[in-house]
C-alpha cells in the first residue's frame, strides 16, 4: 500500500509498503527512531508505546495500515536534545529513570495524561500508566515526575 504519516511533525511518504508491517518496525528500521522499544512482542509490556493523534498506541501490535495519514509522536519529537521538554526534565529531576528502557513510553503516557487533564491526581496517574511495565524503579518516582509536570502545566495555565 501507499502510506503517508507524520512523525514528530515531519511528513513521510512510502510508495509501496506492506500494510501488515508493524508500526514499531517502520519507526525503528525505516525511520531510525530507536526510542521506541520492543520488550515483549505481544502488546503487554507497553515500551513500544507511541502517541497516534495524541492517543497511546502499542506500536508492536499495530500494523502500519492503521496509521495512514495520522500524526505520530515519540520522545524525539517531544523535545530536542538541546532543549528537552519540561516533562523530560521532570523525569531527570525526580530520578524516574534507571535502565531507561521503559522511559520513552512512560514519558509519552505522562504527556498524554497531563494533556488530557492537568488536574490529574496521583491515584489517577497510577491507574493510567499501568499499561507500561518498569522493572527497575518500583514506579514511585515516575508518578512523582508526572505529577510534578501536571502541577507545572497548571501553574503555567493560571499565569
Amino acid at each position, binding site marked *: 500500500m501507499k502510506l503517508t504519516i507524520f512523525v514528530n511533525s515531519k511528513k513521510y511518504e512510502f510508495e509501496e509498503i506492506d500494510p501488515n508491517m508493524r508500526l514499531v518496525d517502520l519507526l*525503528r528500521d525505516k525511520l531510525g*527512531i*530507536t*526510542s521506541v*522499544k*520492543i*520488550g*515483549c*512482542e*505481544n502488546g*503487554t*509490556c507497553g*515500551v513500544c508505546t507511541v502517541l497516534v493523534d495524541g492517543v497511546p498506541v502499542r506500536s508492536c501490535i499495530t500494523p502500519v495500515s492503521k496509521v495512514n495519514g495520522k500524526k505520530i509522536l*515519540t*520522545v*524525539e519529537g517531544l*523535545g*530536542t*536534545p538541546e532543549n*528537552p521538554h519540561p516533562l*523530560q*526534565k521532570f*523525569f*531527570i*529531576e525526580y*530520578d524516574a*529513570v*534507571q*535502565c*531507561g*528502557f*521503559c*522511559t*520513552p513510553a512512560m*514519558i509519552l503516557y505522562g504527556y498524554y495524561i497531563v494533556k488530557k487533564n492537568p488536574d490529574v491526581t496521583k491515584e489517577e496517574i*497510577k*491507574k493510567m*500508566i*499501568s499499561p507500561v*511495565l*518498569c*522493572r*527497575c*524503579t*518500583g*514506579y*514511585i*518516582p*515516575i*508518578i512523582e515526575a508526572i505529577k510534578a509536570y501536571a502541577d507545572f502545566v497548571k501553574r503555567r495555565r493560571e499565569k
Partner: protein
Amino acid sequence: MSIGIQMEKTEMLTIVGKPVKRIDAYEKVTGLARYVRDLRFQNMLYGFVFRSTEPHAKIKKLDVKEAKKVPGVYAVVTADDIPGENIVPIILNDRPLLAKDKVRYIGEAIALIAAETKEIAKIAASKIKVEYEPLPAIFDALEAMKEDAPKIHDSGNIFTHYKIRKGDVEKAFKEADLIIENVYQTNYQEHVYIEPQGALAVPEGDGITVYSSTQCPYYVQKAVANVLGLPRSKVRIIVTTVGGGFGGKEDVPSWVSAEAAVLAWVTKRPVLLEYDREEDMETSSKRHPGYVKYKSAFKKDGTLIGIKVEYVIDAGAYSTLSPPVIFRGTIHAPGPYKIPNVWVDGYAVATNKVPTGAFRGFGSPQVIFAYEQQIDEAAYKLGLDPAEIRLKNALDLGDETATGQILRYSVGVKETIRKAIEVSDWYRKRKEYSLMEGTKRRGIGMSTIIYGVGLGAAGKILERSGATVQITTDGSVIVLVGTSEMGQGMRTVLAQIAAEALGVTIDKIYLPEVDTLAVPDSGPTVASRATVMSGNAIIDAAEKIKENLLKVASEELNVPPERLDIKDNVIFDTDNPNVKVEFDKIVEIAYAKGVKLAAVGWYHAPDTTFNEQGLGDAYYVYSYATHVAEVEVDLETGKVNVIDYYAVHDSGKIINPVTAEGQVQGGVAQGIGYALLEDLVVENGKIMNPNLTDYLIPSIKDVPNIKVYFVEAEYPEGPFGAKGLGEPCLMPVAAAIANAIRHATGVRIKKLPMTAEKVFFALKEHGVRG
C-alpha cells in the same frame, strides 16, 4: 556505639552523599541512549538460534543441508564448525555453546543461522532436521539427588555441595526449649529485564568487537575468545546501554555474545543477535527453585542456639553460576544472627530444565524465606514480639558469624531493626491488627537480613577492579571503569566518587560505558560490588594524579604541596584559602611542563577464607537490612495486597541518597513480584508461560508506597565508607510479606509465590474464615 567506626570529615564532602542527578538520565529521556538492538552496521546480518525440543536426548543425526540452501542464508553453524573450543567458560565449564551429541534441556542451542533478515533465518531453521533418541529425563532436584537417578552429566547430578559445621547441633536440639522444623519451597523467578538479551558482533582485522548488553564484559570477552580460538587481547567488548540486568545479564550474555561472534567470524560480516521475549524467557538463566528444610533450636527467652539446614537448588541442565549461588546460599542460611551451633548443607543439583543462574540475592532469598519465618514463628510460640526476638539474636560489633568470622566494623543490623520499629509504628500496628475482624484482615511483618558484599571466598580470584583516569588538556576528566551500568546508578555514583577524590565538580567527569580495551579485567558487575571495587580503584588513580597536580600548583603558588587541596575546581592553600588557582589553569601548566595527568587505579579486596568445615572470613564486609511489610488479606479470595512498606538499609555511607532510594524501591517491587505474583510454570521441562501475559510481574497497581531509610554504619575500607546495596533491596521482601500474612491470618505460607489461589487454599485448610 554499635554501628562501628564513623568516618572522619564526612561533613567536609561536597559531592559524595548528595542527591546528584543521574548522569545517564538525559540520554535516556531524549531517546539518545543506544541499546544493542538500536545499533546498525553496513552489511549486517541477523542471527538466529535453532534449539532442542527435547529435555534429554541423544542427537542421532543433524541435517542442515536444506537450511543452507535457503536464499539469503549466509551461514548455518553446528558444533563441528565452531572455530575454537565448544565451551562457554563460566565456572565448571560444562556448558557447550552448541549441543553436539546430546541435548539436556528444551531450548538448548544446536545450530546458529546468519541471514539477511531474521525472517529468512527462521525459515532456514524450520528446514533443519534432527533425529533424537530420547533419554530418561529428570525434572525434580530432590529426585535427581537419589543414587539411582538418571545421570545428566558423567560426573553425576550434584554440581556443588557446600557445608558449614560449627559447634554441636545435636546437643543444641537436646537443650532446646523449642524446636521448629519446616520445609519451605520457592519457585523460579524470571528477571524480566525489559530489554531482552542481545549482542552485535563485528569482525575487525584479525580480532572482533562485540557490542553486548551485559553486566560482565570480561566474562563475555573470555567466552568469545574461547569459542573463536582467539587471544583475549583481540576480543574487544563494548557494553551498550543495558536495559536492566538484575543478575540476568551476568552469565547469559556470554553465550548470546559468543553465538553472535561465531556467526560474525564465519560470515566475516557484522551479526546482530536479538532474542525475543519468548526465546529469552525459555532459555535465559533464572532464579533457582529452592527446597529448604530448616530446623531451629530456641531457648525459652528466644535465644537461638542451633540450626540444621538442608538447602537444595535446582540448577537445571548446566552448572553455569550455580556453584557460587549455592556458596552464597549456604553462607547466608543462618541469617544475621549469633548462632553457636550450625549445620548447613547446600546442594546445587542438575535437572533436565533450563539452567538457572544469578538473580539479585543470588541463592539467598530462598533461605531467607525460610529462616525469617522460623524466627518469626518462634516469637509466636514463645510469646515474644517478632522484632524483639530479632534484636535479641542479631549480630553486633565483635560478634562471631555462623562461619566463625569476627565482625570488626560496620555492623548496623540492630540499628536497622530499631529504625524499622520506629518508622513503621510497629508495636501499635502489631496490637491493632491482631484485633481485626471481618473478611479483610491486616497484618504487619518483619524480615531482617545479612548480605556479604562482593564475591566472597568462593570468588576471591576475581575480587579486583581497575579504573583509568585522565585529565584532558581542557581540565575535563575521563574516568573509565570495568564495571557496567544497568540502571542501578553506578555511573553516577562512581562519577561522584571521582569528582570528590579530584576536588572537581561533577560536570567535569565523563564516565561512559565499559570498553575492555580501556581498563584491565575488573571482574563482574555483580554482588553489589561496583561501588566498593571500582570506587576504590578510581580513588587510587585520582590520588596519583592529584599528587602531580598539587606539585605543579605548589610551584605556581609558592605553597608546599601538603598544604594544598582542591575543591570545586579550585586549588587552594588550606592555611590561607585566598591563595588559590583555577584547576584548569594548573592542568594547562602541567601539560606544558610535560607532567603526567593520567593513571590506572587498582583495588584488590581484603582477603576472604572458607575451609572444609565451612568456617572462615567468608566476605570482607556485610550489608544489612530490615524490611517491614503491611498487608491486607482478603479471606474470601486469598488475595494479598501490600498496603504499606518500610525498607531500612545499612549499606554504609550512601553515596547518592536519591539513586539509592530508587534502587531500594525497585528491589522491593521486584521482591513483591517474587512473593506474590511471579509463577513460572514448567511441565516436563517445558516452560508453559514464557511471555508477559501469563507470567505476571508487578505493574504499578501492585506496588505500595515504599518508604526507604538508611542507617549508615560506615565501612572504613569502602570508598567514603560505602558498602553494597543492589542485592539486599530484594532479599527480605518475600519473608516480610509471609510474616505479615501470618500476622493477618494466623496461617503461615511456606511456598512461593503466595498467589491468591495458594493463600485461599491454605486459609481453607486451616479453617480461617471472615
